[in-house]
């Protein structure tokens, strides 16, 4: 039995259409014997109806009618697997460029991004979509990116084909301007055949030149993403009004400790005002506690009446962090309309929501050329860098030091849509 000691590993797939993402997830589930019988009979039924001789494992994750009809993945499907080695949350993301927003959705919470490469289609470089998804992984600073060179059966299990794909991906990642100011991404490379199962869960006898573990064995060993150990950051989600007497007579500041740790009697500083006070009491979901760790929810009461509202951030008294109104952001823009200077959007950072006006578009990133270039706008699915002026100061931290303090989303005021993922990094390279 899984004892709930370890967190499940969150894996997301990426790569161009038809490179075998869905088949790979299906294969992983099938060969670890973690598909429920009713799910499997659904797959065999639909495969038979489509006139296929064998069960099409890619159907395991395709869940929408339009997906089955068009034979593509449109949106992320989440699957949960308890294998003998560990528990997984698998997010099968689509390949088409118009669904990049969904790839970002899956990758933004992933511990590992599996980027598939089809060696039958790549003769002189990676496909544009493969580059885009690799770029998305680097943009988000996903802790682990695995380049899965799939369909090895279709290239005669050729070592050369694998080496070529590995070199392109290596070269792309090492030259990418999107790695600047990100936590380190560990890259690894696996040759597999999702169709036949070679080197996915079962070791392959047909690739004697490969001496690494199977993909599954590798995934089973990866660590889940830890919260930053950098300084304490507590974003106030909710203010509990004074209720009665004793410890409840004071306001309680309710939220999740994003990083670091806090103890009773620590002095904290409200980032925006600089006012300080000592922590009187900490209540966790389990009840009172002398301290709170990163990732835990807490209700904090302070010794003094200081002005605190939702979105305020508590930092250690000694923190050198200077909240700022003018900030530079790396964006993954997924808005339908182009982003141009002068546009005003909402920016959500922790529990804080402010207005943000685009001062300047600093650059756009050319996925194909793997280079930043000057730009006057960001179009749908562009990565780029902008400078914005916010309506209130933001207590941001560089993403490389604090994932929690270094990320935000942008929201359109008109449509209420989410239009960008944003990363704060210290300064331009």
């Amino acid at each position, binding site marked *: 039995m*899984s004892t709930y000691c370890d967190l499940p590993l969150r894996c997301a797939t990426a790569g161009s259409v038809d490179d075998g993402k869905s088949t790979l997830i299906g294969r992983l589930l099938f060969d670890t014997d973690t598909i429920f019988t*009713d799910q499997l009979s659904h797959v065999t039924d639909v495969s038979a109806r489509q006139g296929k001789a064998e069960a099409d494992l890619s159907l395991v994750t395709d869940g929408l009618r339009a997906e089955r009809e068009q034979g593509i993945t449109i*949106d992320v499907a989440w699957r949960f697997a308890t294998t003998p080695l560990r528990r997984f949350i698998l997010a099968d993301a689509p390949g088409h460029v118009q669904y990049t927003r969904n790839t970002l959705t899956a990758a933004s919470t992933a511990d590992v991004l599996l980027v598939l490469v089809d060696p039958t289609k790549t003769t002189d470089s990676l496909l544009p979509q493969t580059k885009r998804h690799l770029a998305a992984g680097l943009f988000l600073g996903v802790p682990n990116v695995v380049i899965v060179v799939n369909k090895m059966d279709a290239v005669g299990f050729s070592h050369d084909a694998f080496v070529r794909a590995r070199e392109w991906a290596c070269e792309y990642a090492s030259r990418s301007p999107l790695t600047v100011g990100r936590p380190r991404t560990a890259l690894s490379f696996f040759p597999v055949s999702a169709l036949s199962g070679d080197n996915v869960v079962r070791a392959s006898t047909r690739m004697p030149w490969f001496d690494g573990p199977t993909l599954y064995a590798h995934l089973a060993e990866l660590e889940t993403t830890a919260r930053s150990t950098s300084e304490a950051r507590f974003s106030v989600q909710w203010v509990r009004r004074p209720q009665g007497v004793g410890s409840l007579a004071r306001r309680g500041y309710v939220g999740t400790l994003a990083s670091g740790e806090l103890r009773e009697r620590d002095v904290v500083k409200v980032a925006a005002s600089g006012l300080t006070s000592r922590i009187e009491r900490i209540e966790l979901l389990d009840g009172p506690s002398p301290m709170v760790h990163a990732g835990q929810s807490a209700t904090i009461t302070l010794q003094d009446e200081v002005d605190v509202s939702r979105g305020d951030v508590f930092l250690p008294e000694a923190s050198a962090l200077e909240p700022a109104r003018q900030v530079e952001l790396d964006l993954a823009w997924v808005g339908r309309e182009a982003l141009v200077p002068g546009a005003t959007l909402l920016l959500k950072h922790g529990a804080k929501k402010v207005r943000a006006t685009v001062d300047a578009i600093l650059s756009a990133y050319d996925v194909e050329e793997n280079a930043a270039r000057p730009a006057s706008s960001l179009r749908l699915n562009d990565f780029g860098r902008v400078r914005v002026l916010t309506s209130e100061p933001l207590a941001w931290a560089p993403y490389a030091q604090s994932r929690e303090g270094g990320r935000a989303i942008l929201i359109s005021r008109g449509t209420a849509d989410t239009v960008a*993922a944003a990363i704060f990094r210290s300064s331009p390279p």
Partner: protein
Amino acid sequence: MAFTNPRLAPALAALEEESVHTIREVVAERERPVLLFSGGKDSIILLHLCARAFAGEKLPLSVMHVDTGHNFEEVIAFRDALCASLSVPLIVASVQRSIDEGRVTEERGPRASRNRLQSVTLLDAIAEHRFDAAFGGARRDEDRARAKERVVSVRDELGGWDPKNQRPEMFDLYNLDVAKGGHLRVFPISNWTELDVWSYIAARDLRVPDIYFAHEREVFERDGMLYGVTPFVQRTASEVSFTETVRFRTVGDASCTGAVRSSARTLPEVLREVQDARVTERGATRADDRATDAAMEDRKKEGYF
């Protein structure tokens, strides 16, 4: 309410923290949040998580049940008792009333079910009470359409879900804004599995209705599934009833929720059974999802949970 319970195992604690974070974000940003509460295990966990999220204060959200009128008696009794013990006022939106008022037409025949009619009652109630965010206990491991759902899911003026055009959802930063006329459906336990639910119930010592545990019941067989004999389901002549030891894995409308043969009478036994299960929860027990490949997707597009 004060909670002083032993520490949870890390992975269960992480699920609890993630769900509580989501619940607080929504309650903090939306004006009129509501929790949809049926008395089933998933909504019991949701209600419990809400109580924990806002420990020490009055629950800052409404609680509502969309009652088809064809529910299991013991579940309704449990629902009322739990709300009373937490001093939570319960709004009941009634499908029967929607039928009486001519908003929907009752299906006829042996396979009639009020399951689908619920969507109209739900949307009417959301409009009547001007709710702008509704929490539901749906999980991604339940069904292939649910596997595609965001934690925060946008519904248009008609209550419809557009699965091909979902909002991106990045990091743990939820966009809770919604264009005029629409509302949000929020699924804080999206990432919990059936096993997680039972493990949490055991770890937190939560009470659930008895029908989740093995008991003797008069049932009949239809399409390979066992249904309880109730006044709400018409049987055909060949559908003879018999007594069987069963339990329910899901609890919904009695007309479309099947039971499974089981000898699991205690929580540890249920946990063991769920661990060894080879058929999904809904696959084993829900007639409503067996109708077509996209039964759930189609209902969701109409406003269903």
